[in-house]
C-alpha cells in the first residue's frame, strides 16, 4: 500500500481578480480521493468552523460566502478520510479549493447515514484493487455482512444476520425485487465487480426496510475528448470459469458514455478434497449502457440501463436450479444545480424501473415429481431529491413513489397425473410512497449531528381471486388489501474526540414493511430445515432499535477501528410449526411466520491496517456476532469469530499478496431454523502480479492453496466451498485522445 497516512495533499487558491473586502465571494470546492482520483461525494465543507455544504456526487460544492476577514479557515471532513483543513487568504471573487483526501482505511462501512464511502471501496484500494474476483468476496470482507452460499454464484448477503427479506436491494438507485422464492437471485447476481464503483450498506433511509444494500456502478465522466477500450480475460481452474469483460468508454466536455459487458461461463466446481459439486455451473451475460450529458450549465442528464441474463445456474445446496434469470433495469435522472448559490443547492428528479424474471426447475434432478417455479417482479417509480442549505444547515429531503408487482407460482409434474398448479407468491401489487429528511448540523469544530426521519406508506393488494381463495383455505379469511406504514427516525453523531481518535454513534428506531413471503408465502419449501413455509396475512410489522458505535485510532503507519452494533427487535418475525399437513415431498411439516416476541443481537468487529515497511502492508478484520430470542432460542445466521487477513508486498511493478480466512467452530446454532454446528477452518490464497500501467496487468493466483474442504457457518446446507483454484487474469487498455 502506497498510502501516505497523515498527509494532507493539496490546496491551492487561484486569483482571478482583485479582492474587494466585505463582498460576497464564490467558493468552489472539488474534493477527490488522493489515490483513486475519484470524486468524494458527501464530504462536509466548512468555512470558519461553520458547515456550508456537502459535496455532490461529483465531489463538487459551490457556495456564496461573505467573508468578514481576509483569512478563512477552510475544512473538509468525511468519515473514512483524514479531516483536512487549511488557512487561506481571500484574494479574488472566486476561491477554488481542490482537496485530495487521504483515506483512513477504516474497515468500516457506513457508520454515517448515507455516507457512500464503503468498506468495499477501501478494500478495492487496499486489498483487492488489482484482482477483483467476485462481488461476494468483497461483501464477505465487510464487518456486518456474511455470505450465505447456495451455489457457485451469488450468495445471499446476510446483513447483521438478516436475510434479504429484511433489507432492500438497489442497483444504480433502482430498487430490485428478487423474484425467486428460494433466494436464488439476490441482486449481487446482477453486478460484476468490473463495473462497480462501490457497495453502500445503509441502515437508515432504506426504503421501509431495515437496511439497504446499494450497488453503485461506476459512472461515466466528462472531460477532454477521449475514447478508451478496456478488455479483461480470466480463467479459473476450479470450475473452468471463463470470464471476459469488455468496456468502451467515451468522454467529451459535455458527454460521457460507458458501454460494457461481462460474459461468464463455468462448469461444476470441485470442492476442497475433490468432491464435485453438481450442479453448480452457470452461464451469464451482464451488460450496461451508461450515459451522462451536460445539457446546460444548470442541467445534467444521466441514464443507465443494465441487463443481466443468467442461464442453467446449478444450485447444489437446493433441490432446484435456475433455468434462467433475467434483470432489466433503467434509471433516468435529471439534475439541476443553480449556477448561483441559493437555498437550493441541488435537485434531482429520477424515473426508474426494474424487472426480474426468474425460472427455476428441477429437470436436472432425479425426483419423482418434477417442478417448474417461475417468478416475476416489476418496479416502476420516480424520485425527487432536494439538497438545500437552510439557516446554514445542509439538509436533504427526498420523496419517492414506486409501484411494485410480484408473482410466483409452481407447476408440478407427477408421472401419469394431471399437472398440478399452485401459487407460491400470490400475485401482489404494492404502491409505496416514502419521504425522507436528513440534516447535517455541525457541533462547533468537534463534529456533526445528523438527525433523520423517514416515513413509508404502502398499499398492498392481492390480485387474483383464485389465489386469495387458496390462501384463505389455509389461513382463514383475511382482507386481500392491506395498508402498511413504516416510519423510522434516528440520530447520528460523529466527530473527533482526540487528535488521532475519531468516533461515531448511531441510534435508530425502524419499522419495516413486511415481505411477501412473510405475508402471503404459500408452501415455500425451505431445504435447510426441511419445512414448508406459510405466510401470515395477520402479521404485525417488525420493529427494531439499532445502535452502532465506532472508535478509530489512527497513527502514521496504521489504523485500528473497533465497532459494535446492537439490535433490539420487537414483534420479531420467525416461523414456527403449525399442525397442518405439508405439501412438498419429503417435507417434515409446515411452519408459519409469527410475531415471536422480542429478540436481540450484537456484533463486534476489530479491524486494522498497518504499513509495516515501505511497500509491505497488512490488514485484518476480526468479527463475531451473537443473538437470542426472548424465548431463549438463539438467533440464526450469527457469525462465529472469523478473521480475515491480508499481507501485500508491492515492490512496483510487481506485487505479491497472501490472504487468509479462518473461523472458529460455530456452536451458536439455531436448530429451530435448521442450522447445524460447523467446524472451524483456515484457508489461504496467494496472488502475484505484474502491473504495467494503472489498468494493464497480469495476475496469477491460487485460491484455497491447501485445497481445504470447508464451509462457512452461513452456507446453505453446509455446501462445501470451492477447492484449490488456480486463476489467471489479464487486463489491458487502449486509449485514444481526439483533439
Amino acid at each position, binding site marked *: 500500500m502506497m498510502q501516505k497516512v497523515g498527509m494532507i495533499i493539496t490546496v491551492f487558491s487561484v486569483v482571478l481578480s482583485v479582492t474587494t473586502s466585505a463582498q460576497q465571494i464564490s467558493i468552489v470546492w472539488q474534493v477527490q480521493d488522493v489515490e483513486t482520483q475519484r470524486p468524494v461525494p458527501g464530504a462536509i465543507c466548512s468555512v470558519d468552523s461553520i458547515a456550508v455544504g456537502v459535496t455532490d456526487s461529483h465531489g463538487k460544492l459551490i457556495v456564496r460566502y461573505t467573508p468578514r476577514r481576509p483569512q478563512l479557515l477552510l475544512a473538509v471532513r468525511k468519515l473514512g478520510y483524514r479531516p483536512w483543513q487549511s488557512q487561506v487568504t481571500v484574494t479574488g471573487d472566486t476561491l477554488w479549493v481542490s482537496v485530495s483526501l487521504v483515506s483512513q482505511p477504516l474497515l468500516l462501512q457506513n457508520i454515517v447515514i448515507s455516507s457512500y464511502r464503503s468498506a468495499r471501496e477501501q478494500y478495492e484500494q487496499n486489498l483487492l484493487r488489482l484482482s477483483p474476483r467476485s462481488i461476494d468476496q468483497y461483501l464477505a470482507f465487510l464487518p456486518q455482512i456474511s455470505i450465505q452460499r447456495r451455489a457457485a454464484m451469488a450468495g445471499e448477503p446476510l446483513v447483521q444476520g438478516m436475510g434479504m427479506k429484511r433489507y432492500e436491494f438497489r442497483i444504480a438507485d433502482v430498487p430490485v425485487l428478487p423474484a425467486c422464492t428460494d433466494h436464488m437471485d439476490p441482486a449481487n447476481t446482477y453486478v460484476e465487480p468490473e463495473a462497480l464503483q462501490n457497495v453502500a450498506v445503509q441502515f437508515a433511509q432504506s426504503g421501509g426496510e431495515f437496511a439497504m444494500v446499494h450497488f453503485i456502478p461506476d459512472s461515466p465522466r466528462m472531460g477532454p475528448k477521449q475514447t478508451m477500450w478496456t478488455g479483461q480475460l480470466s480463467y479459473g481452474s476450479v470450475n473452468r470459469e471463463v470470464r471476459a469483460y469488455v468496456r468502451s468508454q467515451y468522454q467529451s466536455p459535455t458527454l460521457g458514455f460507458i458501454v460494457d459487458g461481462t460474459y461468464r461461463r463455468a462448469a461444476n466446481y470441485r470442492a476442497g478434497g475433490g468432491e464435485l459439486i453438481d450442479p453448480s455451473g452457470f452461464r451469464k451475460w451482464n451488460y450496461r449502457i451508461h450515459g451522462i450529458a451536460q445539457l446546460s450549465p444548470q442541467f445534467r442528464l444521466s441514464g443507465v440501463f443494465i441487463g443481466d441474463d443468467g442461464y442453467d445456474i446449478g444450485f447444489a445446496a437446493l433441490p432446484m436450479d435456475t433455468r434462467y434469470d433475467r434483470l432489466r433495469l433503467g434509471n433516468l435522472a435529471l439534475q439541476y444545480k443553480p449556477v448561483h448559490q441559493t437555498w437550493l443547492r441541488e435537485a434531482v428528479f429520477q424515473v426508474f424501473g426494474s424487472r426480474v424474471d426468474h425460472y427455476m426447475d428441477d429437470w436436472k434432478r432425479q425426483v419423482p415429481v418434477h417442478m417448474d417455479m417461475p417468478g416475476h417482479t416489476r418496479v416502476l417509480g420516480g424520485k425527487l431529491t432536494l439538497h438545500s442549505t437552510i439557516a446554514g444547515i445542509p439538509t436533504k429531503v427526498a420523496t419517492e413513489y414506486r409501484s411494485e408487482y410480484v408473482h410466483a407460482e409452481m407447476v408440478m409434474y407427477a408421472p401419469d*397425473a394431471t399437472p398440478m398448479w399452485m401459487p407460491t407468491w400470490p400475485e401482489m401489487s404494492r404502491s409505496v410512497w416514502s419521504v425522507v429528511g436528513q440534516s447535517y448540523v455541525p457541533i462547533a469544530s468537534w463534529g456533526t449531528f445528523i438527525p433523520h426521519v423517514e416515513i413509508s406508506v404502502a398499499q398492498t393488494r392481492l390480485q387474483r*381471486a383464485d389465489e386469495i381463495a387458496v390462501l384463505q383455505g389455509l389461513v382463514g379469511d383475511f382482507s386481500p388489501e392491506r395498508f402498511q406504514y413504516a416510519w423510522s427516525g434516528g440520530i447520528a453523531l460523529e466527530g473527533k474526540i482526540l487528535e488521532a481518535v475519531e468516533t461515531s454513534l448511531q441510534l435508530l428506531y425502524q419499522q419495516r414493511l413486511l415481505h411477501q413471503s412473510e405475508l402471503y408465502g404459500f408452501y415455500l419449501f425451505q431445504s435447510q430445515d426441511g419445512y414448508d413455509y406459510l405466510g401470515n396475512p395477520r402479521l404485525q410489522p417488525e420493529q427494531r432499535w439499532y445502535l452502532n458505535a465506532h472508535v478509530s485510532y489512527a497513527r502514521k503507519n496504521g489504523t485500528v477501528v473497533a465497532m459494535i452494533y446492537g439490535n433490539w427487535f420487537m414483534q420479531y418475525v420467525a416461523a414456527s410449526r403449525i399442525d397442518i399437513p405439508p405439501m412438498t415431498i419429503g417435507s417434515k411439516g409446515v411452519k408459519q411466520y409469527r410475531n415471536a416476541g422480542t429478540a436481540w443481537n450484537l456484533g463486534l468487529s476489530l479491524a486494522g491496517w498497518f504499513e509495516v515497511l515501505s511497500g509491505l502492508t497488512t490488514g485484518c478484520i476480526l468479527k463475531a456476532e451473537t443473538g437470542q430470542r426472548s424465548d431463549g432460542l438463539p438467533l440464526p445466521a450469527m457469525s462465529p469469530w472469523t478473521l480475515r487477513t491480508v499481507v501485500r508486498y508491492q515492490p512496483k511493478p510487481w506485487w505479491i499478496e497472501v490472504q487468509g480466512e479462518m473461523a472458529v467452530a460455530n456452536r451458536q446454532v439455531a436448530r429451530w431454523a435448521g442450522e447445524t454446528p460447523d467446524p472451524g477452518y483456515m484457508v489461504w490464497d496467494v496472488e502475484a502480479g505484474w502491473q504495467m500501467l494503472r489498468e494493464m496487468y497480469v495476475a496469477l493466483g491460487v485460491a484455497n492453496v491447501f485445497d481445504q474442504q470447508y464451509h462457512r457457518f452461513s452456507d446453505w446446507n453446509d455446501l462445501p466451498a470451492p477447492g484449490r483454484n488456480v486463476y489467471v487474469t489479464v487486463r489491458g487498455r487502449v486509449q485514444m485522445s481526439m483533439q
Partner: protein
Amino acid sequence: MKYTIFLLAIFVLLIQSGCETSNPTTPDDQNDQGQSFSLVVARQQTAWGEVAIYAHDTLRAGYAELLITVKHNGQYVQVSNLQFEPEMAMQGGMSHSTPIDTLFWDAQLQGYQVHLVWVMATYSPGGDKMGDWTVHLTGTIGQDTLDLTLPIEVYYAERVKAFISALDSAKIIAALHISNPEVGLNDFDLFVYRKVMHRFEPVTDLSIEIEPEMPSMGHGSPNNQNPVHIRKGRYQGKVNFTMTGDWVIHTAFYRDGVHIGKVDFPVTF
C-alpha cells in the same frame, strides 16, 4: 439533442418491457346459479305442444340439475299432479329408479327444476351399454293429459360410489358434487341413499369424515369440514384443495359411531 433522445429511447424501451404484464387467466368461476340450462337433453312434440328437458351440460353419473319445460298452445305452463319418474332398464332385465333431491316450479325460467342424482351411467367406462335411462312424465294441463316417456343418455363419471353397509348389508350409494372445483375451500354436497328394492331412500343419520389427498404427492390438506346432514340424504361440507391436479377424497361413513364403509372420490381440475 441526439443523446438525450437516445437515453429517453432506452428508458422508454425499458418501461415498455416492464409494463408487459401477463394477463392472469382465472379458472372458470361460474357456479350452478350462473350456469344456464343451455343443453337440450330430450325433446318431444305432443298434440298440444312440446315438452323439453334441459341441462347445464352433458349428463353424467352423479348429481345433475334439469329444467323441464312444457309448452301448451304456445305458452309455458305448469302441470297439475306432475310426476317425474326416471327409470333405468338394465341389460339384464332388472330396472331401478334414481333418487330425486328436489323438484320445484321456477317462475323465472318458466319450467320445473329437478335436482337429482344419476346413480349410474348409460355406458360403462369401457363404452359398453349398461341399460337405458328414461324419464316418465305424467300430469294434466287443463283438459289435456301429459304422459310421455323420454329417453336420456347419461355418461360415465366417477362421482357415484356404492358400498355395502357393514351394519345391515344394505347397498349404500354416495354421490359427490362439487360444482366447479378450484383451489381453495370448496363447498360440496354428498348425497347418500340406501337402495330399497328398485328405489333409493335417503340416509339421514350418518356421520361422515372426509380426507382429501393428492396421491402423486402424498399430501393432504388442512381445514376441511366434514359434511353434515341438511335434508333428505344431502350432506354439506367443505373441502380444501391447495393446488390444481388429481385429488382423491377419502370418505368414511359411520352410523352411531360404527364404521360402515368407505369410498374414494377422485377429483381432477
